[in-house]
């Protein structure tokens, strides 16, 4: 389908095009809710079934890094919202600036996540053949209550890596979208009249942020003893 200016040939008006894009992105986000929902359900069921092993798992996660990451992502949602605002008022330089800031903050998040993953690797907490919880970390009461303690602890980490990994993958895709937007924005493509792509990527970015808002308490904060 050809494009004259910003209007694609199969649409009658720019308004129809924008409405379609918006509805399409919202429906896509609903599918993402269902996608993450499946693994969140698996986590919830297992957390309920194995509270002691999962509590141990939560306590090994770095609360400070997790909290910093939460702040970083919230800030990136702010800069993204600013980019969308700049789009609405047609301030092209500001659009580019805020998109770059969002990308930088996203990069910081992924970097900190990498540090956390590396620490898990060092402490033999990555599921698989090298997984090992030292005996002194497991209280006698816990081991007695749950004969499958080690297996359930490994299950926590499987779900931890699965959920945060899926989230990180979505952030990488988001970063790719931001890079594309930055390149387009520098060419002056976005104006007060046409800024739909910025808004749509904004919706996606906010969604990825919200997933983290749920991940952080569920994984890091429940049954925290310190």
């Amino acid at each position, binding site marked *: *389908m050809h494009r004259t200016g910003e209007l694609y040939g199969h649409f009658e008006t720019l308004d129809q095009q924008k*409405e379609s894009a918006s509805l399409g992105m919202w429906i896509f986000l609903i599918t993402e809710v*269902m*996608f*993450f*929902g499946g693994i969140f359900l698996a986590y919830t069921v297992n957390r309920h079934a194995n509270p002691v092993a999962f509590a141990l798992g939560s306590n090994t996660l770095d609360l400070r890094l997790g909290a910093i990451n939460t702040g970083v992502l919230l800030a990136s949602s702010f800069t993204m919202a600013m980019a969308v605002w700049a789009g609405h008022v047609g301030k092209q330089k500001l659009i580019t600036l805020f998109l770059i800031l969002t990308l930088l903050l996203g990069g910081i998040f992924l970097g900190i996540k990498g540090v956390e993953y590396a620490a898990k690797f060092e402490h033999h907490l990555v*599921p*698989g053949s090298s997984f090992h919880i030292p005996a002194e970390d497991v209280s006698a009461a816990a081991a007695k209550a749950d004969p499958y303690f080690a297996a*359930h602890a490994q299950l926590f980490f499987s779900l931890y890596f699965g959920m945060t990994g899926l989230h990180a993958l979505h952030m990488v895709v988001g970063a790719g979208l931001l890079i594309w937007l930055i390149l387009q924005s520098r060419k002056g493509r976005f104006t007060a009249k046409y800024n739909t792509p910025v808004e749509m990527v904004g919706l996606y970015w906010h969604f990825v942020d919200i997933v983290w808002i749920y991940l952080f308490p569920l994984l890091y904060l429940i049954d925290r003893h310190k």
Partner: protein
Amino acid sequence: MSATESRPAEQMPEKHYLNADYGIRSWLLTTDHKRIALLYLVSVTFFFLLGGIFAGLIRLHLLTPKGALLSPEVYNRMFTMHGVAMIFFFLIPSIPAVFGNFFIPLMIGAKDLAFPKINLLSWYLYMIGGALALYSFMSGGLDTGWTFYTPLSSVYSNSAVAPAVLGIFINGFSSILTGLNFLVTVHTMRAPGMTWFRLPMFVWAHYATSIIMILGTPVVATTLALAGMERLFHLGFFNPQLGGDPVLFQHLFWFYSHPAVYIMILPAMGVISEIIPTFSRKPLFGYKVMAGASLAIAIVGFLVWAHHMFVAGQSAYAALAFSFLTMLVAVPSAVKTFNWTATMYRGSISFQTPMVYAFGFLGLFLVGGLTGLFLGTLGTDIHIHDTYFVVAHFHYIMVGGAVMGYMGALHYWWPKMSGRMYSETLARFAAVILFVGFNLTFFPQFLMGYAGMPRRYHSYPPEFQIYNVLSTAGATILAIGYILPILYLLWSLKFGPVAGRNPWPSTGLEWQTASPPPTENFEVTPVVTWEAYDFENRPDLGLDKPVIPAAPASGHD
């Protein structure tokens, strides 16, 4: 019949979507929804034939009680690959990806779907998923059943599970994007005057189907991803040895796979809702109720998944709840069946091939649906769960229902898609063969299932042989019923008479444009001023005023 005979012979249009551009790139890089529909038509037909070959091998093997043709391990692979090919790569895309893609824009007066490039992406995702599944089949196949129960699929199976699961995962996104495209299209791309309640029921059916596609498919994607990761990285989500729970897999799997069966049947119901009014020359009875019933099936369909798990150890209270909800979900389907019948009442009925398929659908879907109630009843399910009764039930719905709907759609819209008519005699003959072959194949399976023959078994006690022989005989006849259309439809492309704009005739917008349609669908964007199925007020159809005899005073008809 008379309307077509009295009109002058029509010409094929000069330029249309098939000859608008030439060369392989114009097909593989097309964004025209009509061309994408044909790409899907070819691909789903391939998987249908592949699934059919597996079915043929199963039926051949089951001719004798000891099972002489295939070893048990190979037999397991046959029924698994039959299920995977047919469900994920034929049934779920079939009507939406072929006829939904082709006709939804035409029916609402739009130039294309909302996202034409995403439509093409959907097809490529389907092809990549299909290629992975084929790779799995060719590297020794799959023996877990299409249901992939853990820990067999995630730990113990020695078959090519990982590529198959990856292929189905990717194919799932094809489905999700198609559903997304349809939902947005119906909301934002309707022509002026095409209000929600003037939409053809086919569009409502696809709207409901799309809701299921976008809500359900992501869950099976996650589920298969978890099972795949368990297999590849020895994690323990569903493996009891590693602290996991196999029943959790079953819940997650069936949460999608039950609504998936409604993805398969709702579009077929939409097709029947187009065919019956056309060949009764009468409006669809109870339009709003039909639309509501489609949505009700979609929503309530999400609430019944654990009726596949009655013997998996759930509590009696949970079983009770799911059984009750299962009874509920049958109600809107029954309402639809009554409304189709009421549509025909006092109509001017003609028995062209699409209508023969519609009648086949009505009878076979009825049997399939009713037997679902036997299965949903807790006491009887204990006896017939995992027997051939279940196999017969779902084949009555999926083949007798969904595939009949697909064949009906193919014959109803072939003139519009190709500009040609096929041989009506041959087509009607094939439809009848299909009906006879189908019943001979699957009715004995109800009997043997009820008598105790389990499903997915490669050998059986000798007293079941008579049923199996009848079933295999039926399968041979069924195969003829599927091969014949391929032959005469292809033949008609070159030698069939020109169909003209509106051969049946029918009231839908798609029949207002040329056959085959131009790339942009309509020369001028239509403005809709009539209600759906309004045969009375459409003088342009060239029909005689329908004669509905007044009720005689004496009270006998």
